[in-house]
């Protein structure tokens, strides 16, 4: 007979089943945990993406859609550039620059590669530096700083070039008469020493009306050529001091108005004068010396 009171409750076996036990042990394996938590989601993600992208048409649709959206965004009127404004350049240079930059306007500001355009603009010899910026209102502003011509360099007999203060080429010049205000220099390597030439011209002062130009000798030193084929040979080092010394001499003795062809200042301690042939004869005669045989050469 069964008891009417409390039934002995059905006791569940507290022991884990074999499979539950094994699963728990598996779950406690570190490698398995890492694989399950990281590896499995990564695998599923890669699988889904792979399956979606397996179809060529779908791939094209996705890339086309992205390109379409990008283009739509970039071609909004807010990003459109309508005008190019060039500042600080002469009209000729501005036209040349416009032609060189060759920007098709209107364009989207995303399509403009400002760095490349700037590099292109700076290829001009006449331009010292260029700044490009996009201004509001769709304006591409190009601020140009032109090189200022300071010298004319006679490269060869039929070729004249203008140089700026640092000796960089600015532009070619058709004839000397186009820029009579600029001093002339000549000789090979004259552009490299342009700064020195400018200092000499500054120092020349009273000689300027008589000066025809400076000639670079052996890429080393300067000759100053005056009218009447007078030549002042300046030393390679400290030519400005030598010239100033000569000018002092000139104001005292009026040296340069005399019949002298060459004043050689190359040795600072011993300036040398070369008289014109006629003056030489006259000078010897005045000293009562025999008339020398006329010589072809100085040597």
């Amino acid at each position: 007979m069964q008891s009417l009171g409390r039934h002995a409750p059905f006791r569940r076996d507290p022991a884990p089943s074999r499979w539950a036990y094994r699963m728990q042990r598996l779950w406690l394996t570190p490698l398995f945990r890492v694989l399950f938590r990281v590896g499995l989601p990564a695998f599923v993600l890669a699988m889904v993406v792979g399956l979606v992208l397996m179809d060529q048409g779908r791939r094209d649709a996705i890339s086309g859609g992205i390109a379409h959206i990008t283009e739509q965004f970039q071609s909004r009127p807010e990003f459109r550039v309508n005008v190019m404004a060039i500042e600080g350049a002469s009209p000729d240079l501005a036209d040349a620059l416009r032609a060189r930059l060759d920007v098709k306007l209107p364009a989207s500001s995303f399509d403009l590669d400002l760095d490349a355009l700037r590099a292109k603009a700076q290829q001009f010899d006449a331009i010292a530096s260029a700044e490009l910026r996009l201004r509001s209102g769709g304006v591409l502003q190009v601020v140009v700083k032109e090189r200022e011509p300071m010298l004319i360099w006679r490269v060869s007999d039929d070729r004249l070039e203008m140089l700026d203060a640092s000796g960089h080429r600015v532009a070619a010049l058709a004839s000397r008469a186009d820029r009579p205000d600029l001093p002339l220099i000549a000789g090979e390597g004259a552009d490299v020493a342009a700064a020195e030439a400018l200092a000499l011209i500054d120092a020349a002062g009273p000689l300027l009306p008589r000066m025809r130009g400076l000639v670079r000798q052996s890429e080393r030193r300067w000759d100053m050529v005056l009218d009447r084929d007078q030549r002042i040979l300046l030393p390679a080092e400290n030519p400005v001091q030598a010239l100033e010394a000569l000018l002092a001499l000139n104001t005292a003795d009026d040296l340069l108005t005399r019949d002298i062809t060459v004043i050689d200042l190359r040795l600072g301690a011993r300036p040398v004068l070369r008289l014109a042939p006629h003056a030489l004869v006259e000078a010897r005669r005045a000293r009562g010396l025999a008339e020398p045989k006329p010589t072809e050469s100085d040597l």
Partner: protein
Amino acid sequence: MTDLYQTQRAMRALRRAAIQRGVVAILDVGTSKIACLVLRFDGYESQADSEGVGPMAGQSTFRVIGAATTRSRGVRFGEIAVMNETERAIRTAVQAAQKMANVRVDHVIACFSGAEPRSYGLAGEWELQDSVVTEQDVARVLAACDVPPLGDGREVLHAQPVNFALDHRTGLGDPRGQMGNRLACDMHLLSVDQSVIQNLLYCINRCDLELAGIASSAYVAGIASLVEDEQELGAACIDMGGGSTGISIFMKKHMIYADAVRMGGDHVTSDISKGLQVPMAVAERIKTKHGGVHATGMDDRDMIEMGGDSGDWEKDRRQVSRTELIGIMRPRVEEILEEVRSRLDAAGFDTLPSQQIVLTGGTSQIPGLDGLASRILGSRVRMGRPLRVQGLPQAASGAAFSSAVGLCLFAAHPQDEWWDFDIPTERYPARSLKRALRWFKDNW
């Protein structure tokens, strides 16, 4: 013997691997409960303070990171009787301990109390060839020990060299490097029933675990509950478990004798169950709540409700005085202790210099047991609790867990057993590469 050597060596290798991985489980398969502790090893500690022939098995510090107990099922007298049930119980304990530790455990060191352990004292002698003791000489003297006939189906569980003697000097812990002519050795060998080990191995394998070591629970309970001077001077540890009571005698920090009485707390419970006509669960509850071995006048008035759900009011309302309960329990406890006494006498315990007796195990928690035990076993009886180990939960620090804790210590600091030493060269298989190497080492 050689395959025993091989299996034990394989277990040592597994244990080393487990310690290298850092996690090993301790499984105490008892009759009333199965305890599982998960140990994390911190690494090898310095081996300076160790004695004996040297820590061949390696030592380590550890920490308990998981602990679980479950009611044992299918175990009788400390032996596995119903495999399926025991396997489930082991699974429950291991799973809970793993969950607490949050690591997966693959290696298990187990102990059991039954299997009729028998102790043998072995002695061997060896004439040294060049008057200095080498490792090979130690191996040869161990090999020279005469193994007594163990009987059919018996297997060696422990075989520990206890003492070395060189000529007339005895009591050497480590004879290596010493000078002498004749090396002698005493070894303690513990044999158990092979089938019990095989059953345990099978159960543990069924749980996807690997056995990395095996020990007698009497031995490990002694390690845990005897303090150092007791182990040194001589003491007996009585591990009173549910189904069997283990006895181990220690001397000079070595176990020199072990035995087991096939009686324990479960028998007390069944006596109560039979005597009071109550189910085992109720009897167990009454025993743990109201049990004792000394009746006083107060106990006559202390009535215990037995309860029951038979539906019969008279039967369900029965009461019993505590004196009656003690009257049922005491004869059984006395019987156990007397059996222990006779085993100790047979072992010659009364000839030891110090006759300390330590009671431990779950049944030793019966109130008043120490008084009863001192009347039967001798005056020097104390109650033992296991050593404190790091990370052990409070619930697992009682006397019932002394063999589990001892097994932790055993796992971390195993004593050198016979199979930790080298095999003598001539025992190697004839065509072994090791033998050739050994020959070179010995002769060059």
